[in-house]
């Protein structure tokens, strides 16, 4: 039986208008709906496909406080076998990767999946840090993932192309679009999610080296300059002489 671990993060819904409080030092969570990170949905969906037919079990793991339980239950409803929550606010990617690595050292897995990035802090950091901490290979942005026994065949995104790799298990895969289609929980999944095991583990103290001290939103653009549809030549002129981008 193959053991798959899927790392999941709890992030603001993609429609969220991002604002800040406390003199722009805190993200304003007021009225914000939190969801399972879209990339992690892809990771989970691929894990379910790979484990299908009794080939494996899927554990989802999250570093977060009790507020993330709803997102964890969603992952269980989609099809994870069980869940682990490391009971701490995720201070930064290093902190998250460290906690997960400690858990994995005590509870080994054959394959570890993360999303390519979390849509809040967009680090693409956890996969690589986890690989390094566990001294196993990691590929941060994967477009395709297949298994052949103990070896994975992987397609990695590169600028203007792709790279094909083979990697012995265990390794860490950061999944992107193309790996799988997200799965929607069905009624049976939602019912059974309530009784699937969710283990809460206390964190291990560790020093962190990065800290967000403030936020800002992009400066608003000036008013749009409209060009008459019949004369795009005028647009070309403006892009050349005024905007100086062509």
């Amino acid at each position, binding site marked *: 039986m193959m053991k798959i671990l899927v790392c999941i993060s709890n992030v603001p819904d993609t429609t969220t208008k991002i604002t800040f409080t406390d003199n722009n030092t805190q993200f304003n969570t007021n009225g914000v709906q939190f969801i399972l990170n879209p990339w992690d949905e892809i990771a989970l969906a691929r894990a379910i496909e790979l484990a299908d037919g009794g080939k494996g079990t899927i554990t989802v793991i999250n570093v977060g406080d009790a507020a993330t339980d709803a997102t964890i239950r969603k992952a269980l409803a989609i099809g994870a076998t069980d869940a682990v929550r490391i009971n701490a606010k995720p201070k930064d990617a290093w902190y998250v990767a460290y906690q997960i690595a400690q858990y994995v050292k005590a509870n080994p897995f054959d394959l570890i999946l993360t999303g390519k990035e979390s849509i809040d802090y967009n680090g693409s950091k956890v996969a690589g840090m986890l690989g390094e901490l566990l001294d196993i290979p990691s590929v941060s942005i994967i477009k395709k993932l297949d298994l052949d026994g103990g070896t994975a065949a992987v397609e990695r995104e590169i600028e*203007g192309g792709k790279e094909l790799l083979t990697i012995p298990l265990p390794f860490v895969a950061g999944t992107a679009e193309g790996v799988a289609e997200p799965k929607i929980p069905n009624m049976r999944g939602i019912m059974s999610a309530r009784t699937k095991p969710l283990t809460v583990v206390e964190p291990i103290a560790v020093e962190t080296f990065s800290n967000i001290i403030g936020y800002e*939103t*992009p400066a608003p*653009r000036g008013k749009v300059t409209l060009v008459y549809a019949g004369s795009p030549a005028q647009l070309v002129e403006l892009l050349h002489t005024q*905007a100086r981008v062509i």
Partner: protein
Amino acid sequence: MSVLIYAENAGGKFKKSTFEAVSYAKDIADQNNTSLIAISIGDVAAGDLAALGQYGAEKVLNVSNAKLKDFVNQAYASVIAEAAKAQGADIVVLSNSFSGRGLAPRIAVKLQAGLADGVVELPAQDGGKFTVKKTAFSGKAFATVELSSAVKVISLTPNAYKVVPNGTDASVEDFSVENKESDFKAMIKDIVRSTDKVSLPDAEIVVSGGRGLKGPENWGMVEELAELLGAATACSKPVSDAGWRPHSEHVGQTGIAVSPNLYIAIGISGAIQHLAGVSSSKVIVVINKDAEAPFFKVADYGIVGDAFEVLPKLIAAVKEYKTTA
């Protein structure tokens, strides 16, 4: 103390994003009155290595070894971390490219360093505090991160920093590291590059199409405009979901984030998830037949009109401009 920049190559050639990162690292070195050392891994021509000096590198470490010809994440991370130690580098800079995003976290762990990813500005170093600005919430905001470790790793967003050629050629030295066997577990079977196309994350101009273009058969116009402008092509999510265009072209919050000098959006409504990935473009042009489309609110220039009428005229106008310019 010094600054180390990893000069990434693609198929043996340095990319624009590499020159940006070298220029950026040079300015950090200047902030700290120290020197900039570059490291290159793979097969790069001697002249190209020395030319990194023109962007500010004082010395270039050249790691050329058959096993390291292609990007092997773990092995490259070991080499760069060892070089940082050997050179006493306390700041390591990389480009936040696809490969950079695989490398930077591993290097940071090896060096016990704080990592700032997707950085868009020079760090501020006042009163002993080291802070740097990065994109957050998929381009909907910026965060200022303080790094408190002795060694710091910074990955720079492509297109966020100007290339400044100023220096002269650098001296090139060979450098090598004994890699562990386990650094080579992942094996590259093949690299497929679409050489005829401008790569989307690096592109200075992006021409992007949405559902308003009705179907894949209408992308000829988009490609023609892109080719004339030396631009990359992109699309909205429903377009790649429908299979009209490949996933690698999908931009936005759940696609690729881009920040070109010019982003031209054709038949795209401007949903919040789309804007998240493109709003840091320097200039935005929107072509949409609906004057109420939300995209116009964040555009610099707009044409309210039917893409099927506007695009052929725009293509003709660009051709005209190209022949007279």
